[in-house]
């Protein structure tokens, strides 16, 4: 079976600075895959490259077997890739409702949009009473939920989430992961998620990649890495 996303030997440079030094990874349909690694490892760059926000210097990206390396973000959004970037990037002067609906304007299945919206609001009841608020007034956790909801409204096949737990209370993070899993079960969504810490990820992910200094140091099934020792080594770069 062709993987939903495959990255082959991807290099990314930002004006002289190297962010990715040749990484390869793949995500199968309906998987939850996590990339973990310290700050500056290249996690955000990887997700941005898949979503078309960063142009690779070398290597290739495939989505459903088609090469999409040079596609821009708009086209990739149409194909079914949606990114929830780090820092959430909510349109703070738009209302919560407007934020949600921005993602739906390219869709042609007008009836399904309404149902999707209502189902989302069932998942995120905290947004319902704030629908007409400027989104900038939401709390961090609510903004994260809105950012995920907004991405879901594009009806993606692949959802990329960059550090969903950054700056949020553990309880909220747990809620977000519960919802993410529900979306996977219910909508057949595939998820590629960046995180800095490994404990939570081990619980929720099917597979894990450890990224450090632009290289993939380790990858494997979450079940096989449960004890955390190999992840620790890969993450910090210790040798035994």
């Amino acid at each position, binding site marked *: 079976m062709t993987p939903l996303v495959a990255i082959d030997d991807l290099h990314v440079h930002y004006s002289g600075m190297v962010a990715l030094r040749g990484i390869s990874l793949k995500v199968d349909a309906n998987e939850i895959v996590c990339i973990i690694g310290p700050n500056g490892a290249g996690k955000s760059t990887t997700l941005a490259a898949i*979503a078309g*926000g960063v142009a690779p210097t070398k290597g290739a990206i495939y989505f459903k077997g088609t090469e999409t390396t040079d596609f*821009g*973000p*708009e086209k990739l*959004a*149409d194909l079914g890739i*949606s*990114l929830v*970037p780090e*820092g959430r*990037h909510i*349109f*703070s*002067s*738009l209302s919560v409702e*407007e*934020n949600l*609906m*921005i*993602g739906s*304007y*390219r869709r042609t299945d007008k009836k399904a949009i309404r149902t999707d919206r209502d189902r989302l609001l069932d998942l995120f009841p905290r947004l319902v009473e704030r629908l007409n608020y400027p989104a*900038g007034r939401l709390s*961090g956790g609510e903004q994260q939920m809105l950012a995920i909801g*907004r*991405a879901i409204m*594009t009806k993606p096949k692949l959802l990329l989430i960059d550090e969903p737990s950054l700056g949020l209370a553990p309880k909220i993070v747990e809620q977000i992961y519960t919802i993410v899993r529900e979306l996977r079960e219910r909508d057949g969504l595939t998820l590629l998620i960046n995180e800095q810490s490994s404990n939570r990820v081990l619980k929720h992910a099917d597979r894990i990649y450890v990224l450090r200094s632009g290289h993939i140091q380790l990858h494997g099934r979450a079940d096989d890495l449960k004890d955390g020792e190999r992840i620790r080594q890969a993450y910090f770069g210790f040798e035994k």
Partner: protein
Amino acid sequence: MVEFLQYSIDALSLGSIYALTALGIGLLFGILRLINFAHGDLITIGAYALIVPSSNVAAEMFIGSFDIYLMVPLICLIVVVAALLTDVAVFRPLRRAASPTLLIASFAVSYIIQNGILTIYGGRAKSVNLWNNLNQQFAWGDLRIPILQLVTMAVTIGLMLCLIIFLRFTRYGKQMRAASEDFRMAQYLGVRGNFVIGLAFVISGLLATAVSLLYTTQTATVSYTMGVPLALFAFVAVVVGGMGNLAGSVIGGYLIGFLVTMLQAYLPQDLRGFRDCFAFALVILILLVRPAGLVPGRNTIERV
């Protein structure tokens, strides 16, 4: 008191012109981070489109002599096409360039348009009589109110309402607001960047057309540099109002109109020649107190 009210009407009318121009500049700045100094020259194009292309000193009406229902759409079309051409030919290739590069490019566009008009129409200002009957006045108590000033204000309010309705209630308006807040994020959600920018150029072209017609009727002259001071004052209005904030641009436009008119009226005779100097000095004072402008744009507010 009557005198002050009389000047206030002038100020509102001039402020309307500046506000419309500032809206055109502010809209593009919001979405593209482009300070478009060529916006003034779009106004010039709209004015020159009224007359027959020729370097004769006496202007002969061309589109300007058409029926108003044909003339206004035609001028709109010409200015909008010109605005879109500047985007496609100049600003689109510079999409990834830094703001200062875009600013310099807009100066280049401005000079190209001015010199193009200079070549075709000649350098002398020409007298153009558009909608003469609007220059009549009627008396209201001791006040004399030129109909044109009422029309200017009405058109301004009308266009602002249309813009508000467009931005608030239509899907393209919402996409424009989203893109002007976070362009890349909007693209990630499938919003077409070039389309939304094109739309902003179309709207700024329409706003420029309105200014062309109103301003030409008022001054009854066209010259190839007529748009330059308008763009300059409107730019100052945008800065004073708060960059990246359309309400601020409008408020800034009226404020500048008010300052200029009142200084012209109340400065001692000897100093009136330095009116703009006083106006800009006041602008500097305002910016010293409120560096982000009167209505700070959302881009200057730190997002947490």
